[in-house]
């Protein structure tokens, strides 16, 4: 009589084979990629009007009102609907947009904007200086749930207005097309701040005060279709026929699906149901790049987010600058970038590529293990790699979010620092807990921290992350709790300087201080990587806006396939 085990063996084999096959299917081990949808004409053909651009994102748009709470994806959606007085060209420079010109006077304290005549809002009304002023005061009103109102505290009259003691900001409206803003102090970042969605004019229907139920209406290249926004599910915007730039946008509409995981996104993109693939997994990027039909259709964006290992300068051992220098010298930034090479690049200094003021020739922090060991010796904690003796005697708690790239990077860091006698104890927590712990004074010795540029100016990196003024006991953005009066002074002067050359020199010095004091060991810059179908034309990387479709056009050479979704994307 055969044993039960013998009887079950053939069945077990079948089950294991079936399980492996089932696991392999979603990973696509046994299938190649489908061919991309063809383009009708060769590159260089003139743009054609029409078509709907279809996109998907893992995340959700939170708010379409530019005055409301915002984040990266929300801002991208708002850019479709609202145009600003100023914009940024493909080199990241501020250029006129709804304002055809501006004059700066009073040593950089007064900005006088002249609007273009004949700019039409989505409701058909002409944009006037009153609209600009009303929109800005609406966004900065104390009852508005704005995420960025305090960026504009330099506006004259802001304190009284935000405190509810003044009905208006200082500033004047002259006639129909001229509006003037005054600043308390010269602010070199003011024009960049003015380009943010929060400052973009909204239709009269928005009124003077923010309400949640307002139907978004602005002067952007697209307008919201009635019922076009299903919160958490989809957004559909259609061309604003009265857009002030002749011939633009080329597209009839943009449709955006939200909450779509990366693997289903790839299925839909490959099947021709999406025109751009925004959230590809690294494995899928590798597959696309290895396929001659798809290679060349990937678009690399500029780094807009920086990451570093923040070391709390008030907690041992990181109150010792030599220990911080040792960490900065031990980290091999190329190892970090290998986690997701399509979207990560080694970072040796504070400013990422794409931000005005970035200096590619700057000598930043570099990997040098011998130097790291020397810094450990100078700190008073010499370490002998051969015997494993010495180093910092206690484990260092490293707090990291359990759903980020940081969870992988932390293991690289742990191994690297062990080689110089620093032993990390990884504490993986939820993202909200990670934020709460790392932003609280005295709660975290070391953790990864990222910063996405809020606006196109170096100050968005230098000020919140490292100035003394940014230090708070809770909700602190300077999570290294780094304080250096010389650095503070340089950064303040750079913000107020009106000469680009002076600013560049000051920020260069500030960058050197950060490199040498090492409150952060800079690790990697992060950028978007987007796959496009061959028929998507005019899509390019922009240094400021992660997503600009004003000049995109579709050149499809075949009929649209039946959608893989249930109709509502």
């Amino acid at each position, binding site marked *: 009589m055969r044993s039960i085990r013998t009887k*079950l063996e053939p069945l077990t084999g079948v089950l294991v084979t079936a399980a492996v096959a089932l696991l392999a299917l979603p990973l696509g081990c046994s299938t190649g990629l489908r061919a991309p949808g063809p383009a009708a004409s060769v590159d260089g053909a003139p743009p054609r009007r029409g078509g709907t651009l279809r996109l998907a994102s893992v995340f959700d748009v939170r708010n379409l009102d530019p005055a409301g709470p915002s984040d990266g994806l929300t801002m991208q959606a708002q850019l479709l609907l609202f145009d600003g007085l100023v914009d940024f060209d493909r080199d990241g420079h501020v250029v006129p947009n709804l304002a055809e010109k501006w004059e700066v006077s009073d040593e950089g304290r007064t900005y006088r904007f002249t609007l273009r005549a004949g700019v039409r809002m989505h409701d058909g009304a002409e944009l006037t200086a009153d609209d600009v002023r009303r929109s800005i005061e609406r966004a900065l009103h104390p009852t508005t*749930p704005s995420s960025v109102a305090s960026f504009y505290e330099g506006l004259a009259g802001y304190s009284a207005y935000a405190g509810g003691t003044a009905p208006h900001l200082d500033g004047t409206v002259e006639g129909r097309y001229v509006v003037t803003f005054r600043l308390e102090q010269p602010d070199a970042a003011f024009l960049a701040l003015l380009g943010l969605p929060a400052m973009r004019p909204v239709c009269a229907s928005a009124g003077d005060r923010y309400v949640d139920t307002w139907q978004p209406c602005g002067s952007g290249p697209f307008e919201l279709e009635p019922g076009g926004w299903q919160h958490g599910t989809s957004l559909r915007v259609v061309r604003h026929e009265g857009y002030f730039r002749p011939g633009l946008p080329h597209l009839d509409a943009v449709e955006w699906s939200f909450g779509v995981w990366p693997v*289903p996104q790839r299925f839909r993109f490959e099947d021709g149901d999406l025109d751009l693939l925004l959230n590809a997994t690294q494995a899928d990027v590798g597959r696309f790049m290895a396929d001659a039909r798809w290679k060349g259709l990937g678009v690399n964006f500029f780094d807009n987010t920086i990451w570093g290992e923040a070391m709390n300068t008030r907690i041992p051992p990181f109150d010792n600058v030599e220990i911080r220098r040792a960490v900065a010298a031990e980290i091999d930034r190329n190892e970090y970038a290998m986690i997701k090479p399509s979207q990560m690049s080694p970072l040796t200094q504070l400013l990422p590529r794409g931000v005005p003021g970035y200096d590619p020739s700057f000598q930043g922090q570099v990997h040098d293990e011998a130097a790291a060991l020397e810094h450990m010796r100078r700190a008073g904690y010499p370490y002998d790699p051969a015997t494993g003796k010495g180093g910092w005697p206690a484990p260092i708690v490293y707090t990291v979010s359990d759903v980020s790239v940081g969870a992988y990077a932390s293991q690289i860091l742990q191994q690297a620092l062990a080689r110089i006698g620093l032993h990390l104890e990884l504490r993986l927590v939820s993202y*909200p*807990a990670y934020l709460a*712990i790392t932003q609280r004074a005295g709660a975290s010795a070391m953790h990864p921290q990222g910063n996405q540029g809020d606006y196109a100016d170096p100050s968005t990196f230098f000020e919140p992350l490292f100035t003394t003024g940014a230090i708070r006991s809770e909700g602190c953005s300077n999570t290294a709790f780094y304080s250096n009066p010389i650095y503070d002074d340089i950064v303040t002067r750079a913000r107020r300087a009106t000469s680009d050359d002076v600013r560049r020199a000051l920020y260069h010095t500030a960058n050197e201080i950060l490199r040498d004091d090492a409150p952060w060991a800079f690790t990697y810059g992060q950028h978007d990587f987007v796959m496009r179908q061959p028929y998507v034309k005019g899509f390019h990387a922009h240094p400021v806006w992660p997503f600009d479709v004003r000049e995109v056009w579709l050149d499809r050479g075949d009929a649209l396939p039946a959608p*893989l*979704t*249930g109709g509502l994307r």
Partner: protein
Amino acid sequence: MRRALRRLGWSVFVVWAVVSLAFAVNNLVPGDPARMVAGVQARPADVERIRVQLGLDRPPLVQYGLFWKRLVHVGPRVVDAAKDPAHASCAVVVGLGDSALHVDLGRSYQRRQPVVDLILTRLPRTFALAVAGIFLQLLFGLTTGVLAAWRRGSWIDRALVGTSLLGVSAPTFLIALALQYVLAYWLRWLPLDGFGKTLGDHARCIVLPALTLGVYGAAYYTRLVRDEMAGLLEQDWIRTARAKGLSPARVLVVHGLRNALVPVVTSVGLDFGALMGGAIVTEKVFRWPGIGELAVGGMLDRDGPVILACVVVSAAFIVASNLLADAVHTRLDPRMRARA
């Protein structure tokens, strides 16, 4: 009657306890809802302003008291949100003369909508998915369980039990991805995900998530029914039924299956209640906009009103479906009737 009232009172206590626990946990674990609304990089002044606007500057006990005070209260019969902001997030349940009974679950911090509206919009979707999922679980589970019990010890039994082991062990997301790959991407028979706009769209879109729940749960019911029936089919009264000349199918279904259903009903009661709390992974993977999808977003964003509302709904349905399961249980099992 006294027993029913006691059960009802106990059920209300369970809902209160679960919601209170959720409130405590949400307030005790690190994380700042105002920060989550304002954004990771928002400056302290902006975070503080939003904190005050959301009422999060009040002590947690005051917030807790307000939640229960607002949950069910009497208010105007007709609510004009613009003129009466105090009742803007209420749903009118039943009229009481000039007044009405209101239910108020607050406003979502992130979505900035009355939570009661979000729940009412999503509840029917989750209900549809739960019913479809349970239906498929029972269809597959009972069929294969009876078959395995009937052919106990044969290769059919081993194959079904082995497959059910695979179903129980496989994570839901893996089943979901495999079904998406085969039925949507490869064969193109069904939509990959979404909800659709028309009734036809909804019907097509629900198939894959319901199948995912069906495959996952069916495995459990296969084993439950098979083991239960295997024991029952050895009983003397089954032998008697066979000896009386009843057909095998009648013995199997009327005498065997009916008695095996007692634990199945209990499990269905628990499962249905849990699914009404949201089939979290399934709804998320398939972008089925139900309670589960809402709950996930709420938890990730520390959106207190949404979390509490989802807990209230989930707890209420689990309690209600258990009460219902008890009633059906009593109906199926004469011993329970006698005890009652």
